[in-house]
Each structure stands twice: as structure tokens, then as C-alpha cells.
């Protein structure tokens, strides 16, 4: 197994999941992940490959964000096609979509640094790797993560309550 093969097999799943959670779209995430691996190919050596991959992917997301409006137009078309071809039960889809939407809002409400640290930690990066990828001091990662987790959960619960109230009002 060559090096790029190993890199891809080892980190692709985690990287795509990280990017999907970050971007909210799997296609887009896979595009960015592929670009990240291509850049890894051009590197002679990678000292801390996981931290490097996540750092480059994070930076690519920032770059890609500038193209977001153009891509969203295209994704709107794709979403339209998706809706037409979808055979999933409307109820299940709605529940899942509502849950995901709440989670997305809660994640988006986090500060950028907190969000990235949390998503990287969820993909198994240790404190040293997160610190390297985000250029933070390793000693601050615990505090960053604790703050991120607390805010995420609090934000999610608040959103849930608001949604519950809205549904209650709509029913009455």
C-alpha cells in the first residue's frame, strides 16, 4: 500500500465527516476532502499528517466559502431534483431534517474556533493535534472544548424549547 493510499484510507472517512458537519453538505465535503488529499500528495513530508490534513481542509473551507453563493445556486437545482426523486416517508424526513436543522443552528451559533476544535475532537484528534491545526496552545484546548460543548448543548436545548413552543402554539 503506498503512502497516499494509506493516507486516504486512514483519514478520508473522518475528514469527510468533519467537513460534512462543518459545511452541511456531503458532496461539498467530499470535494474539499479530495482537494486536501491532492495537496497532501504534493507534500514531500508530513510530520503530523492528521493535524496537517485537518488544518488544510479547514483553510480550504474558508477559501471555498467565497464560492458559496455560486455553488448554492447549483445545489438548489440538485435539491430540487432530490425532492422529485425522493421516496422516503415525509414524516421521517421531516423529523430528521428538523433535528439536523436544530443541530446545524446550534453548531453555527458557536464561535469559529470553538466549533472547529469541537469537530476535530469528535474526529479523534488529540489535544496536541487540535492545537497544531488551529495554532492554539495545547493548554487552552480543554477550556475551548468545555466552552464549546456547554454552548452547543445549551444552544440546542434552547432551540428545542423554542420549537416546542411554536408547535404548541400552532396546535392550539
Amino acid at each position: 500500500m503506498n503512502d497516499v493510499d494509506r493516507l486516504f484510507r486512514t483519514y478520508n472517512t473522518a475528514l469527510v465527516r468533519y467537513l460534512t458537519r462543518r459545511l452541511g453538505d456531503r458532496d461539498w465535503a467530499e470535494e474539499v476532502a479530495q482537494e486536501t488529499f491532492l495537496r497532501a500528495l504534493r507534500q514531500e513530508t508530513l510530520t503530523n499528517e492528521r493535524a496537517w490534513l485537518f488544518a488544510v481542509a479547514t483553510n480550504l473551507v474558508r477559501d471555498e466559502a467565497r464560492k458559496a453563493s455560486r455553488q448554492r445556486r447549483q445545489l438548489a437545482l440538485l435539491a430540487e431534483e432530490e425532492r422529485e426523486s425522493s421516496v422516503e416517508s415525509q414524516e421521517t424526513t421531516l423529523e430528521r431534517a428538523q433535528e439536523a436543522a436544530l443541530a446545524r443552528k446550534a453548531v453555527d451559533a458557536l464561535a469559529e474556533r470553538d466549533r472547529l476544535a469541537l469537530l476535530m475532537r469528535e474526529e479523534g484528534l488529540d489535544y496536541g493535534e487540535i492545537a497544531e491545526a488551529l495554532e492554539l496552545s495545547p493548554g487552552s484546548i480543554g477550556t475551548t472544548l468545555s466552552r464549546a460543548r456547554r454552548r452547543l448543548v445549551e444552544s440546542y436545548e434552547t432551540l428545542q424549547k423554542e420549537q416546542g413552543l411554536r408547535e404548541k402554539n400552532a396546535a392550539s
Partner: protein
Amino acid sequence: MQHLDEGTIHAWLDGALSPEEAAKVDAHASECAQCAALVAEARGLIAASTRILNSLDDVPSGVIPSAPSDVASVPQIVKQRRWYDRTDFRAAAAILFVAGASLVIAKTQRKPTAGFETAIATVGAAPPDVQADTAVATPPVIADNLEAKSPPEKSETDAAATAPATARERVAERRALTSPSIVGALKVRSRDEAGREDHFAPPSANAAPSPMVAQTAPPPAPTAPMEKAMQSAFGARPGATMTDAAANRPVQGRVTGRITTSQGAGLSGVNVKVQGTNLAASTDTSGRFKIDDVPAGEHRLIVRRIGYSEKTIPISVNDSMTTANAALDATSNMLAEVVVSGVAATTAGPPTLRQLRADTTGTTHRTVYEVRPGVEVTLVETPVMTEMESGISLDQRAKRAEAKKDSTNTITWSEGNRRYTLTGPLSTKQLDEIKTRLMRTRR
């Protein structure tokens, strides 16, 4: 020890503390109710945040993503395009510039240069792929070059500081990576770094480029000066004739060859690199490799593969093809002998119990058991008494226990109206096992 802060608790739960720090935190959390509550809360937060993030994985592809919230915070360094800042305008300007420059030169020399005519004739007669390199007067090619070779935008925060890829290279490499075979991607990579289209492997049938691929090609940099664009397009200074451009182009050659084992079998996956450059390739399944655009001159090829001895091949590259073959010898690294030894721990194995002696003093019954030769435990059985009755304060008992702590462990328990104390030079876990066995026997 001070109370634990939330960051430390999370670091501890995430296993990010050193063993010493973790032991301290553990000890404090087990003693301090306030911190224990914080630990419990942190566990809950970790589990809940994981669950929330997991729900993001159910996103089907092709939905409309919300713009990442940091988009607004990313400084928009990209300038607004001016009305004239369009690819077709720039291509037209380039053509006019070439025509004008040629006219000036022709007038200066008072007759049309033979070189210009020759070049025009060459452009007309050249095959399509050659035109892509030399047909400077063809607008699409110029446009492509302008796009592909313009410098990366300032705002690109590429931590890797990688070389900018051309648009074609990006598209072709993405195609290759989209295909199921990752090896295919390596093949693409192992070919020409300069991204010449004729070197890319054809995309597999199921690897049609996604519509997004074309869109993610870097946009033309609005700030690219025309002079630089001309240099990119011609490979020579602006104003030069096409024959000048051809003459000024550095001589480059192609290096091909085959890497084999000492038995002559082709070796795949061998890394072949031109020393001191970024030019490299990997061999295919038959051991063949090809490196393009190697500058003319004397070079050394470094040939490496795990399990084989590295070789350096001196080569002399000119404008034609250079062949470099090599046979690698397999290396057998002799590892030092590994001796695995073990010592039977004195505490290993299930303890066997043999009663050595027993005595009764008043209401206290004392029994001594031999667990192993030289290892004895003592079981003291007394009626349950209150602190007042026993005449020994709990504090005193604790001090006694502390005094024995260095050499022995003690566990106490009650059953019915009897209190038992088991003492011995064993771990509390082993004492617990003995307790279970003793109590089972007694019942």
C-alpha cells in the same frame, strides 16, 4: 488541592492529562462533592454534544448548505471586477498586443521577419497538442493560460504552501481521485507535475467530473498584469517574436526508464526523483516511469523503494528522450534478537487458603490463613459495636490503619451482627477475593 476547573475536567475526561495530573484530578474528584458534580455534568455535556453532532451526519447530499458562519468574518480581499476585467477582453488585448509588437518589430527591420512567417506557418501545421503549447495567437489557449497561470489570490490561506495547480491539473486530478482506484490518483500525480493534458490518464467511465469541479477551478486573477500574462502565454518577454519565444524557452527533456529487481522483474511503486528538483514519478506495474520537463543538463536520479537499496543514477538530459534503467537489490534488515522474559509475580495466581492458627480472646475470634508460603492474612471477627462500646474512636482506627498502610492492606465488612477485618500483605482486590471465599465457606 484547589477545585478543578472545567477545562481540566474535560481534558481529564478526554484523556489529555498526564498520568500524574490525571491521578491528582481523580483523587480530588473522588473526595470533593462539588467537583464530582462538575465531572458528572462534563460527562453529560460530552455525550450530548456528540449526539447533537451525530445528527449532522444524516445530511443527504445535494441539499442547500447554510453558508459557513465564518464567511462574513473572512476578510474579502478579492477585489471587485472592473467592466473590462473579463477573460475575452484580456484575450483580445493579448492578441492586439502581439499584433502590435510584431508590427513594430517588422517596421523597425523594414521588412517582415522571416521568423514571424515561419511561426505562423508552424502554428497552422502543428498538431493540436503542439498548438496548445505554441499557438500564442489562438485566443482560447491564451485565455486558458491566463486563467491557469495567474497567481493565486492573496486571501487563499493555504497552510501547506503548495505549488499552485493549473486548472487542468486540478480537474484531471479530481477525476482521478473520484474514481474508485486511489492508485489511479497516484498515477496521475506521478506523471507530469506541469499538468500537460496529454499526460493525464483518461477518466474512468464512472468518474465523470461533477458539475462543481469545473466551477471550482480558480477564477482568473483580476490583478494579473498583462505583462505577466504575456510571459505566461509566450514563455518569453513581452514584445518578443514567436521565434524568440521558442529560442528562449529552456531546453527540457523527458527521462524514461524501467526499474527492476536484480532478477529483472519490473518493480512497481518505486519512487524516482530528479535530485534537487520537485520532479518525480512512481513506476507502474511493469516498473516503467516517465518524467517530463526535466531541464537539460547533468542530473542524478534517486531511486527508492522500501525493501530495496536506494540507487542514484547519473543522467545527462538533452532535448530528446533520456533513458535510465536500474536494478534494485533487495535489502534484508537483520533485526536484533528479541528476548522475552518474565518473572512470576509474587501476587500472581489465585490465592490458596490454609488455616494456620486460630485463637479467641473474649468476643474476638482471630484466624490466620496462609495464602502462599510466607504470605499470611489474618481475619478478625468481632461483634458489631458502636464507637462508644468499643472504646476506640473511628479516628484512632483510621490512624492504626494508616500505620499499617505501608506493608499491609485491610478490608472490613459486617455481616449479621459480626464485624470482620481481614488484614494481609495483599492488594485490596485479592483481599476481597479471599473475603468472598471465606464467607462462602462460613455460610
